[in-house]
């Protein structure tokens, strides 16, 4: 449905997207990358807001730039927070439905369906100026799906959503994908999209770094030691027990904070299942537990090293 052939986009001297070739079909595809990776540039090229400086971008075999024949079958949820603050959510979705060519009963039914799908029916008659970030996000998704598009493109759709809304939004998108639609969403949080799809495109500094199955990419990542920081009341004793775990390949006492340990593991999943049992058995008091590697930046560092 969507094809990029050696597509590049320059902003003056700065490159936003660098020689990207890929094709995106039905189902959910996640476009992953840290901030500034070129995700929004790629989505703007796909949605025909920008033209590629070199290369080619097509949707349904057509050039998407300012092309109503493409927009007829495409829904787009931009990242921007701004909206028409003086109109209600229902008026906004209704306006977008009208511009998409919906009329009469179909129009009314589509607007109501879209609002129900994103759980905004009860707040739809309130002005958008008074919406929370999460509500704006949901109404933006509603306007994107109101005309039942074949391709749905969402730029950071989970921003501002609470965990329950994220799960619900994930279900909505999964349902659309199950109907054979193409859903392309961007995110900078790996685990957020891992639960929804196994197909990912990874962008880094404008380049397509990896594409394909998320498990394969995970496999690449897991070849490298994964760091975890733990703060506890009895760190030395904890270190002794940790080193006996098979999943742990190294433990280091933090020189700046004597209550903190830095753990290295090559099998993070196994470590995460071993660790709670060990803590409970020896009654350690854990005051802090986090992994600096659980962000996409580190994932990309691993991939670049690989």
């Amino acid at each position: 449905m969507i094809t990029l052939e050696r597509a590049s986009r320059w902003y003056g001297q700065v490159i936003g997207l660098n020689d990207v070739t890929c094709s995106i079909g039905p189902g959910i595809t996640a476009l992953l990358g840290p901030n500034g990776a070129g995700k929004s540039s790629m989505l703007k090229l796909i949605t025909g807001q920008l033209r590629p400086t070199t290369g080619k971008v097509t949707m349904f075999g057509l050039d998407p730039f300012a092309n109503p024949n493409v927009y007829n079958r495409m829904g787009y949820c931009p990242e921007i927070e701004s909206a028409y603050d003086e109109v209600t959510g229902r008026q906004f979705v209704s306006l977008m439905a009208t511009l998409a060519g919906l009329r009469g009963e179909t129009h009314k039914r589509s607007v109501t369906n879209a609002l129900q799908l994103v759980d905004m029916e009860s707040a739809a008659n309130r002005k958008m100026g008074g919406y929370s970030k999460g509500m704006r996000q949901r109404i933006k998704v509603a306007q994107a799906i109101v005309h039942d598009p074949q391709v749905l493109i969402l730029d950071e759709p989970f921003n501002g959503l609470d965990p329950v809304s994220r799960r619900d939004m994930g279900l909505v998108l999964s349902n659309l994908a199950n109907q054979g639609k193409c859903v392309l969403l961007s995110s900078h949080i790996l685990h957020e999209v891992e639960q929804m799809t196994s197909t990912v495109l990874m962008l880094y500094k404008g380049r397509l770094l990896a594409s394909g199955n998320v498990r394969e990419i995970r496999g690449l990542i897991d070849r490298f030691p994964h760091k975890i920081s733990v703060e506890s009341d009895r760190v030395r004793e904890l270190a002794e027990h940790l080193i006996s775990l098979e999943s742990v390949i190294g433990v280091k006492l933090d020189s700046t904070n004597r209550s903190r340990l830095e753990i290295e593991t090559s099998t993070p999943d196994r470590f995460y299942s071993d660790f709670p049992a060990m803590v409970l058995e020896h009654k350690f008091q854990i005051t802090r537990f986090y992994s600096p590697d659980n962000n996409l930046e580190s994932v990309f560092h691993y991939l670049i090293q690989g």
Partner: protein
Amino acid sequence: MTDLILYQSAIRDLTRPKRLFWVCVLILIAPALALLVRLSIHNHLDIASFYQQLCSTIVYGFVLVLLSVLFATGAITSELEQKTIVYLLTRPVARWRILLAKYLAAVTIATLAAWLSLSLLAAITIGAQGLAAAHFWLQMGIIPLGVLAYSGVFLFIAALTGRTLVPLGIGIFYGFLWETIVPELPGNFKVASLMTYLHLMAKIKTQNQDSGSLFSTASTFHITLSVAWLVILLTFILSLMASLMLFSVKEYVPREETA
């Protein structure tokens, strides 16, 4: 239906309270000035000539131009600034239709505001009896043509730059300096000012025409009424067409997003 919805949406967008406040200020400048003069000078005031003076310099020369700048540039730049333009540009509606609806909305509001300003000015100065003698209805009729022409020019500048400050700056320079000074310059400079043609069409007498100044007599080019109509209509048609064509092919993405 789609065009009507776009038009209504553009009207709503262009009549936000902040913008309306400045429009009210513009509308009231000429009537307020007239009221002030009428209250302070009781004798020796030639009401008809005073009305013509304010109509020429304030309503036509200032209010009409500035309203056109405000609304025509706002037709493109307000949505760009709010970043909401993306919602319109990714809908299955040809871009030229979006811009045309916005242009018509801008022209409607600017015309209504200019009409209101001239009506209030006439009510305070010449009153109901003087309307016919002062060509009031003709002047009211020419206002939409002036708005169409000026709005077309400023719409083109906004479509070309895609920014608020540039067309506003150019508009203010054009309104305050060009259209005020150029018609008064000696020789044939006056042909480069749209206001010259509008004054002729609306039968507005300027100070130079009254006094037969050196500047006006030095002109060798006589503008006929039909030439004036032709220039105004061509300006409107060509600038609007150029704007619609440009808007259809140019990228419009909010500035910080392209950085």
